[in-house]
């Protein structure tokens, strides 16, 4: 029982990172980014490129992926979103628009890279930090499995979980310790009033969109290690998983996503361990159940029913 619990928490922290960008974008703009998983997939390609072309530690991909997709997000925001917000039903239209966008990304990636599955050997992740690890935990410089409470876990899981905690911490600092973050929270809680009080909603939203895509790409850097391999078609599954995590934690509340991720990760690992043939069903059943029984999420206050 201990193994699935710890593995579940490690995975769960990572899943929080997977979902948090989606939630940030939804919370601020009421826009459903169906292409979220595709940015994860592109992040995975960044890690792959860094490793195969430049021969560097995939960890180097984190700042690169974040910066790259942050900028891409800002540009995309100005191209797509203002037009959408003028429409009569932006939420539904954005859903369809970003679905089309996800198809474009998937198609372009397939055209450029082909459909084959790719992976990166797990020991390559954070290899450059083996010395640091030895300095902290003692022993020889190694990138082998971590031992926790007598059980061993792949180093890549621990690294991904650690980076996720740091990233979520940064989101927290952004939202609660910066001016733009404070405005972001104002827009999230009452968009119309925020507009009325003269907040530059476009600036806040563009920032949130950029950061959201950046975080998705950072999560993508770890995708080859957490999911074993990836293909250009991997985006849609990642989007659905992100939705489960986000809805579990409550839509529109980015920090709730951390809780959603852990709940999801632990239940996934438990089902995987004890009922493995049914594990694939879990995310979908969980998503439907939570939407119907507690549409506001575990932490939420907003109820979204027709």
């Amino acid at each position: 029982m201990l193994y699935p619990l710890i593995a579940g928490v490690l995975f769960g922290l990572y899943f929080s990172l997977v979902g948090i960008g989606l939630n940030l974008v939804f919370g601020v703009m009421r826009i459903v980014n169906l292409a979220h998983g595709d940015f994860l997939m592109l992040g995975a390609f960044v890690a792959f490129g860094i490793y195969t072309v430049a021969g560097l530690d995939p960890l180097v991909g984190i700042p690169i992926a974040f910066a790259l997709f942050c900028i891409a997000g800002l540009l995309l925001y100005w191209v797509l979103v203002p037009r959408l917000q003028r429409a009569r039903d932006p939420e539904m239209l954005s859903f369809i628009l970003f679905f089309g966008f996800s198809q474009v990304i998937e198609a372009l990636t397939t055209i450029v890279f082909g459909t084959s599955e790719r992976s990166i050997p797990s020991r390559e992740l954070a290899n450059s930090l083996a010395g640091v690890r030895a300095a902290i935990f003692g022993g020889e410089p190694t990138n082998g499995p971590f031992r926790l409470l007598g059980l061993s876990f792949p180093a890549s899981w621990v690294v991904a979980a650690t980076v996720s905690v740091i990233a979520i911490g940064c989101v927290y600092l952004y939202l609660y310790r910066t001016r733009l973050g404070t405005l972001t929270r104002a827009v999230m809680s009452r968009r119309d009033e925020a507009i009325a009080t003269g907040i530059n909603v476009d600036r806040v939203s563009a920032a949130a969109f950029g950061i959201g895509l950046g975080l998705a790409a950072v999560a993508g850097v770890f995708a080859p290690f957490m999911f074993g391999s990836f293909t250009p078609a991997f985006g849609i599954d990642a989007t659905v998983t992100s939705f489960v995590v986000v809805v579990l934690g409550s839509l529109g509340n980015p920090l709730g996503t951390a809780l959603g991720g852990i709940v999801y990760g632990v239940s996934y690992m438990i089902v995987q361990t004890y009922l493995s043939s049914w594990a694939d069903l879990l995310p979908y059943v969980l998503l439907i159940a939570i939407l119907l029984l507690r549409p506001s999420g575990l932490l939420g206050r907003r109820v979204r029913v027709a």
Partner: protein
Amino acid sequence: MPDTVRHYLFIAVPLLVVLAVAPSVYNNHLLLFNFVIFFILAQGVNIIYGFTGYLPFGYVGFFGAGAYGFAIMVMHLNAPAPLAVLVGGAVAVVLGLILTPLLRLSGAYFSIANLAAALAVLHLIANPALEQITKGPYGVALNGTFNPTMAYAGGILILALTLGIVVYLKNSSFGLALQAVREDSFSASMSGVSVVRMRTIAWRASALVAGLAGGVFAWYVSVFYPDNVFSADFSIFAIVFALFGGVATISGPLIGVIILYGIYNLIGFTTPQYFQLIYGLLIMALVLFLPAGLVSLATRRGWNVP
């Protein structure tokens, strides 16, 4: 002549006649059959999305359930094919009944939950633990009922029924009330419309035609895997075709199928990613520039498009 009769006579009947004689002059019967299937599915999406505003991202769930309803009747009960097709429709309606609570969700929440539901049904049927009943991931082979000519005829009958439903919705006060619900559900209930009942009826009608289509598809191909009949492409194509032509009309989804599925067959088979790219871009252009579909080019000029 009442509009109902006029619309059926001048839109549905010519299409049905063309499709009925086409196999004797055109050799690619599979392509013709696929056209019939997509006419049905695009109109099925029209029934639920065009008239009630619920975008069924997991529409293929009904199609796959119908196909497996057919397969199980034939494999385990040796049922004659036409009866098995009807059972396929019934299975989809039952699935629709089970999923009725999803209609409590609004907008994107419904679409995501519906997608999750379709994936849940896929993983349930493809589960090796159910091999005795569904043959799990290994697929089914139904040699006993193989009869493409009869299956094609069955498809045309189902299309005739589907068009009948759409023509009725377009011209009846029932269809008008559904559209009223789509526009503003509270205002509709203040017009005396029982909102929940209306939506449920449309939902089941839409499930029925997809289930029948799935049944007749299983009859036609007779060998298939869960991934074939639950392929997200069915949902995506049906939605894109319907949206492209213009929903809440009789002709819109038909035009969408003829144009887009036509293009798909010209360029799609050898390099599907190029078609994916094109329809991804088409969806985006549609949302940004022509959210009401091709027919809105005419309705904007004040022409009445049936």
